[in-house]
């Protein structure tokens, strides 16, 4: 279904501000701000200008190929797609319960993925904003500057990510785009040598993850009002939770809470996600807009990802991370629980949980056993849902009698967060846009709030992009009022405004 995208009474009076593309996110997106005649923000739109094709070109392929095929959606969290597709294929081969070895190998792989992706985002992409401020010199806004200013922190970030990648390599054969899960199980178990190799660095990985949570907690303690208020809004949340309400990144039932934290639905079998979540398209983006059916297309948007998961779960089943969850939830009377920038805080709590989870699994003898695959009664439909680093990831397939894919639907984390990111941009623009002029600080602030969601734009549309950046204001007559350009080398210039 499609809904109108101009909601103003007199759209002819709107002016348009474009930020294209956004830097230090995965992929290529641009932002348009629509201003009314009084320079008030009418709408904010995060456009996804890349095209996704995977749902189409998996059609006709045999189902067993899909978990490896679809992980090529992304080079950052391919493991998430690999596992979500594998879980869908588990349903198709009738594997209702995996062997303990298969379940734990997949969980180990997934924890490795969470660890490396969260470390990548926090240390490489987000830490320059948090350490140097949103308007720091362009030369400072990268991991190299972080390394110069705080070599210990940068080293820990690099090695934390490397550790997560090594967990992935050991479990799936390659750091990126390996193979581990197959329909109904896995293709390998750990050897004692591989386990011991991963054990060697696990204690420091847990310790450094604790330090990373403490770092962001400390930042909040110092600047809670600013960090909480940055583009603030409330939303509903969706995530998987375990049967007992615990945080579970690999498997569980769907839980949704409304803006007041009340449960909308709980422990929903994700195979029937369609009964609760629906999608609309809008003509200005290749990314769909999912919503909760219970709340309708206008009000049913929600957030997923670290903030949603930490807000949604009743507890975290590893002690250090759960202590941090309690600290987060209780911080300043819960003031951070809806904050955009609290994504960074909750992301680090999850990184700590992943490190603890890896430590727990490595002590488990099931990882060394050789009972790898189960099968059962064939089905023609499979749904796999997993909590990817950026949030809930849904893979849904139908096959024909010849075992070929006939239909696929993928709802990725960034798509769930689509409307929330628009709202975040709108709120930040309301706070920081001043008059007709597009300023570099405005541009920086909008990027900071989008980046908090760690959007994977290539993932959401399944293509790759590139990154200079231009903001323009176009008036209702189509003439360019103002333009600000940042080249790939960071040079900011103001070309002469040209008639559009």
């Amino acid at each position, binding site marked *: 279904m499609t809904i109108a995208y101009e909601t103003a009474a007199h759209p002819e009076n709107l002016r348009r501000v474009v930020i294209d593309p956004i830097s230090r996110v995965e992929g290529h997106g641009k932002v348009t701000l629509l201003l009314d005649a009084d320079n008030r923000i009418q709408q904010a739109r995060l456009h996804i200008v890349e095209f996704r094709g995977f749902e189409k070109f998996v059609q006709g392929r*045999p189902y067993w190929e899909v978990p*490896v095929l679809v992980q090529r959606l992304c080079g950052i969290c391919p493991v998430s797609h690999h596992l979500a597709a594998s879980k869908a294929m588990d349903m198709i081969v009738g594997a209702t319960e995996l062997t303990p070895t298969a379940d734990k190998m997949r969980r180990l792989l997934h924890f490795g993925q969470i660890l490396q992706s969260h470390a990548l985002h926090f240390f490489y992409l987000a830490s320059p904003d948090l350490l140097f401020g949103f308007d720091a010199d362009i030369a400072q806004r990268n991991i190299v500057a972080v390394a110069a200013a705080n070599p210990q922190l940068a080293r820990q970030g690099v090695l934390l990510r490397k550790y997560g990648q090594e967990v992935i390599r050991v479990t799936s054969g390659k750091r990126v785009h390996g*193979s581990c899960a197959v329909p109904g199980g896995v293709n390998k178990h750990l050897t004692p040598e591989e386990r011991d190799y991963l054990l060697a660095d696990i204690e420091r990985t847990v310790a450094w993850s604790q330090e990373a949570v403490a770092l962001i907690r400390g930042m909040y303690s110092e600047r809670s009002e600013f960090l909480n208020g940055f583009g603030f809004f409330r939303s509903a949340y969706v995530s998987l939770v375990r049967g007992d309400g615990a945080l579970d990144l690999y498997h569980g039932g769907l839980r949704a809470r409304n803006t007041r934290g009340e449960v909308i639905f709980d422990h929903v079998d994700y195979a029937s996600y369609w009964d609760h979540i629906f999608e609309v398209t809008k003509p200005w983006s290749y990314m769909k807009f999912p919503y909760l059916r219970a709340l309708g297309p206008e009000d049913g948007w929600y957030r997923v990802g670290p903030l949603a998961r930490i807000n949604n779960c009743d507890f975290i089943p590893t002690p250090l991370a759960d202590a941090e969850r309690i600290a987060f939830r209780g911080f300043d009377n819960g003031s951070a629980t809806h904050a955009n920038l609290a994504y960074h805080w909750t992301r680090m709590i999850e990184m700590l949980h992943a490190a603890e989870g890896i430590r727990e699994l490595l002590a488990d003898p099931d990882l060394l056993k050789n009972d790898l695959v189960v099968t059962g009664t064939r089905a023609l439909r499979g749904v796999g849902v997993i909590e990817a680093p950026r949030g809930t990831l849904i893979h849904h397939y139908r096959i024909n009698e010849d*075992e070929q894919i006939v239909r696929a639907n993928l709802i990725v984390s960034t798509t769930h967060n689509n409307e929330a990111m628009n709202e975040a941009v709108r709120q930040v623009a309301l706070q920081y846009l001043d008059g007709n002029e597009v300023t570099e600080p405005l541009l920086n602030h909008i990027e900071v709030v989008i980046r908090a969601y760690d959007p994977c734009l290539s993932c959401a549309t399944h293509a790759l992009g590139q990154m200079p950046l231009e903001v323009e204001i176009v008036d209702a007559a189509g003439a360019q009022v103002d333009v600000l350009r940042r080249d790939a080398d960071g040079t900011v210039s103001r070309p002469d405004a040209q008639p559009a």
Partner: protein
Amino acid sequence: MSGHFIIDGRTIPFRAGQTIMEAAADAGVYIPHLCHRPGYTPHGSCKLCTVDVDGRPASACTAKAQEGSIVENDTPALNDDRRALTEMLFVEGNHICPACEKTGDCQLQAVAYHLKLVSYRFDHFYPARGVDASHPDILLDRNRCILCDLCVRASRDVDGKNVFEIGHRGIRSRVIVNAASGRLADTDIDVSDAAVRVCPVGAILIKRRAFAVPIGKRTYDLKSVAEVAIEEVRAQREDEGG
């Protein structure tokens, strides 16, 4: 008649009736190939094994070894030709190694790595070739077929079934199935057939076995394409009792 010939400066023996390919493999010399397989009638179609015999090009899999001849095999010029031929096979089909279950076990991929094929000079054809998934246990993916004819020979000469043939002409050539419907489901092919197991690429596959072997344990993770080829010859010798 038996005797000796020189290949890449090395004198090696041959037995009566041996091809250059067979004699070279017996001596541990690898000549890149795709349509050849020990024990099968030579086909001479992929042209990858082209060598210079006394200054004239010949397919090593079909040309008989000759006493005293001088054979050039591993030269930059010949390997460049082989690289071009391999590239053509890639661009003429739809070989998506990242998503193919044969990756790591694929002879085309292994030969490409052996020849240091790192980029394409030709445009991809992206042909629409289709998949026959009708058989309950066997998948025929024509996108990955390199028309080596091995399945045709295996089905005819080993299995005695004549399930496959190469149909059509030129760039439209396709492996076709010997059934009125044209579907694999309507033949008597079986997973134990040589025709199912001989495919050097991912065109004929046993269903539901994909990615069962972890990375690091696949054929070409463990051995080079040259080592595998030499071992195949030795295994064939043992089968023949010689």
